């Protein structure tokens, strides 16, 4: 059964060691004598070329096991014999000659043959290629093994068997109503032998199923036939290396093509076919075969050939492709017990598509709703932004007007302000010139000169403060919100207008309540309010005689947590005609007035959470009352 290894792939993997042990006893002892050298050499022979997944997977696992950490130092030589293309005995002789020369320098301890062609080849040519080496084989089916002419005693291996009958059982249980079975296989001699074996295996099913074998057809016709099957048919895909016309295939790809084209579910007894389109089969994995083979090789190398236990591969089972089950509408309930469902992780959608669809629908609905809400929100935000921009615009304008008003009122007070600057400058000049005189004397009066200099420093600071206050009032920026002492505002304002009050012969009193809770706000704006109220009172007092003009600024803490500031004058007071109009913008009683003072003050106080009222005084005159929330209360309210 040359070439049988290509199909003797999965299914039952049995360690035949109990049987083989007896054969090999002599060889083991003979080889043990030669195995003293440090490095052991293993020749790995593949029946195929490098393109066959089945042997590549097994070979890779063997290499991994041989290279493992517990292994002795082992060097492996690999040869892909491609024996399906080297059939003439003379050519095989040539190949053997070549390998003999290739490995002439190497003393090979063990040959691992993958597939029965390689096993046959090395069994025939071992004396030349690897004299004295033991042989381990894998991927060889039981019938192939039985047909081979192996020397007894030093050949060990794992016999693979594929089980078409078990695979047919799987198909029958998944498709209880099926009555047709189509078997697709290749036309190579070993494939025809395989087919013959399959016919035997399927004999028990012959009375229930109409079984058709397609091994005599070209591949196109095979595809054509499977594509026109009734749905309750079963396709069994076997090895297809070569079709009836001699065209070559990679069996797995051929099986994939058949499974894709077929109008009924396909099955295969080989692990490598599962995943490319067939529903499933009764298989082992090449991986586990490779691992078992590698361990067997290690045991033989270390001289345990006679004690190797019979190992059953645990991964031998019914295996199905969940995607294909779904494709054909096959129920998992019909699977034989212990069946392994592969590729199930990809079937979340397939299993739960209704739920997913429902969820998607709900999400889509929600998305639409969300989108609608978002659009609405965006519109509202735009409107909000526009409103905010407008408010900011208005705020900017308010600020500008307040600034202009400040500048104007300071302009009116420029004489007084100049006086406030002039006083320290006068003192500075006088002190400086006095110091000059003191120091210019024959006996300089240094102590007094030092005092003069000290005063100069103080006076200079005083002038600096005036300028700072002015700069604060004159600049037009957003200001800073901070904790503000209203008493300090009153004092600072009084300093600014003191000389104006003197010039206008106004008797001024400050009655400041201490301690006073701070308020939160813009100190420049609050000073503007006080300044405005004081200037208003000063203007009102012009109507009275010089000796009688009186102005009082009072502060007082109110419960709960408010600060009151009053500016009282004994001027003509508020006439009924003025009442209610005083806060109107551009209403003024003054010839040079802009009429914005009180309305600006009112606006400023509103932004500070406070209020401004104007009323007649008890003894005539007018009282302007400012109420501001103390900082703590505001903080709590925010």
């Amino acid at each position, binding site marked *: 059964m040359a070439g049988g290894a290509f199909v003797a792939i999965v299914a039952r993997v049995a360690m035949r060691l109990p049987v083989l042990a007896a054969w090999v006893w002599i060889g083991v002892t003979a080889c043990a004598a030669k195995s003293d050298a440090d490095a052991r050499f293993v020749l790995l022979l593949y029946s195929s070329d490098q393109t066959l997944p089945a042997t590549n997977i097994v070979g890779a696992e063997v290499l991994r096991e041989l290279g493992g950490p517990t292994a002795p130092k082992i060097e492996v030589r690999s040869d892909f014999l491609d024996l399906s293309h080297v059939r003439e005995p003379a050519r095989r002789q040539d190949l053997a000659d070549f390998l003999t020369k290739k490995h002439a320098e190497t003393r090979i301890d063990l040959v691992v043959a993958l597939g029965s062609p390689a096993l046959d080849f090395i069994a025939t040519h071992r004396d030349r290629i690897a004299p004295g080496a033991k042989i381990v084989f894998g991927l060889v089916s039981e019938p192939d093994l039985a047909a081979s002419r192996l020397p007894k005693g030093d050949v060990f291996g794992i016999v693979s068997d594929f089980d078409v009958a078990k695979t047919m059982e799987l198909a029958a249980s998944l498709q209880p109503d099926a009555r047709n079975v189509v078997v697709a296989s290749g036309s190579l001699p070993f494939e025809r032998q395989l087919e013959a074996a399959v016919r035997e295996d399927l004999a028990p099913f012959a009375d229930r199923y109409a079984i058709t074998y397609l091994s005599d057809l070209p591949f196109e016709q095979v595809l054509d036939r499977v594509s026109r099957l009734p749905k309750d048919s079963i396709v069994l895909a076997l090895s297809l290396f070569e079709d009836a016309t001699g065209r070559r295939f990679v069996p797995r790809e051929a099986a994939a093509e058949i499974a894709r084209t077929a109008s009924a579910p396909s099955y295969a007894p080989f692990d490598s076919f599962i995943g490319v389109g067939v529903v499933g089969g009764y298989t082992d994995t090449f991986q586990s075969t490779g691992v078992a083979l590698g361990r067997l090789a290690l045991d033989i190398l270390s001289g345990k050939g006679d004690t190797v236990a019979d190992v059953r591969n645990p991964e031998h089972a019914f295996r199905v492709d969940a995607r294909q089950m779904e494709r054909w509408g096959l129920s998992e309930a019909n699977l034989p017990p212990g069946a392994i469902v592969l590729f199930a992780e990809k079937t979340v959608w397939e299993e739960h598509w209704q739920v997913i669809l429902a969820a998607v629908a709900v999400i889509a609905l929600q998305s639409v709703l969300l989108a609608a809400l978002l659009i609405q929100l965006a519109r509202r935000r735009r409107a909000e932004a526009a409103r905010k921009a407008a408010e900011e615009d208005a705020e900017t304008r308010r600020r500008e007007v307040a600034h202009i008003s400040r500048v104007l009122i300071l302009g009116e007070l420029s*004489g007084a302000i*100049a*006086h406030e600057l*002039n*006083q*320290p*400058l*006068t*003192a*500075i*000049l*006088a*002190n400086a*010139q*006095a110091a000059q*005189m*003191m120091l210019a004397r024959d006996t300089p*009066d240094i102590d*007094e000169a030092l*005092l*003069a200099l000290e*005063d100069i420093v*103080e*006076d200079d600071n*005083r002038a600096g403060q005036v300028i700072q206050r002015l700069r604060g009032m004159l600049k037009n920026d957003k200001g800073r919100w901070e904790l503000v002492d209203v008493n300090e505002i009153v004092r600072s304002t009084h300093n600014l207008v003191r*000389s104006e*009050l*003197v*010039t206008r*012969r106004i*008797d001024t009193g400050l009655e400041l309540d201490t301690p006073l809770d701070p308020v939160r706000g813009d100190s420049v704006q609050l000073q503007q309010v006080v300044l405005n109220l004081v200037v208003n009172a000063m203007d009102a007092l012009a109507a009275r005689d010089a000796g009688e003009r009186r102005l009082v600024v009072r502060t007082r803490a109110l419960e709960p947590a408010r600060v009151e500031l009053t500016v009282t004058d004994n001027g003509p007071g508020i006439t009924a005609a003025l009442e209610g109009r005083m806060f109107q913008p551009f209403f003024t009683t003054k010839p040079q007035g802009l009429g914005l003072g009180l309305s600006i003050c009112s606006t400023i106080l509103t932004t500070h959470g406070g209020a401004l009222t104007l009323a007649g005084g008890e003894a005539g005159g007018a009282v302007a009352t400012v109420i501001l929330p103390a900082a703590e209360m505001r903080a709590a309210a925010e």
Partner: protein
Amino acid sequence: MTDAATIFLVDDDEAVLRALRRLLGAAGYAVRSFRSPLEFLAEHDPDPPGCAVLDLSMPDLDGLGIQAALSAGAVMRPVIFLTGAGDIPTSVRAMKAGAVDFLTKPVQSAELLAAIERALALDREARRVRHDVAGVRVRLESLTPREREVMGLVVAGRLNKQIAHELGASIKTIKVHRARVMAKMGVRTVADLVRAAELAIGTLPAEPSSHGT
């Protein structure tokens, strides 16, 4: 720099007051400083020679008010004004009221000291005149009523013969009166007598005018 001269400083600004006091002290003057005009007026001693340096704008009473108050009293104290803002109407008023000078703050020491020297010179002159007037008054009071009549007519430029005719006395008698007047008044010429009379009239305008001409 007069030894006895006192400068009266009035400014409501403590710093300015201290600095000016220091400056004038360094310049060698005796200085008395006041923060309030009312305080100054209450404590003002008109006797010592000197001048006043007043800030023009102060609470209670401004510089012009002080000036008026000073003028109303018996003694004219020369006044120098200091002002922050030199506004023209105020300065004109101050000068008309007899201010020696009107200086703008901040004031240069040379300027201030020059003004003070001018004020002190005026003060000295006034005091000298006042001193002369006082002498003339004493002499005048030593004259008999008849001698005062004769003196008035002499000063008015009458001749002895006219005086005799006016008073109904002899020329000889008038000559005796006239010689006594010249002796009592301590003058040797009619011109001196006229100046003395002018002094007396300047400070005591009521008396001569009561006689008419």
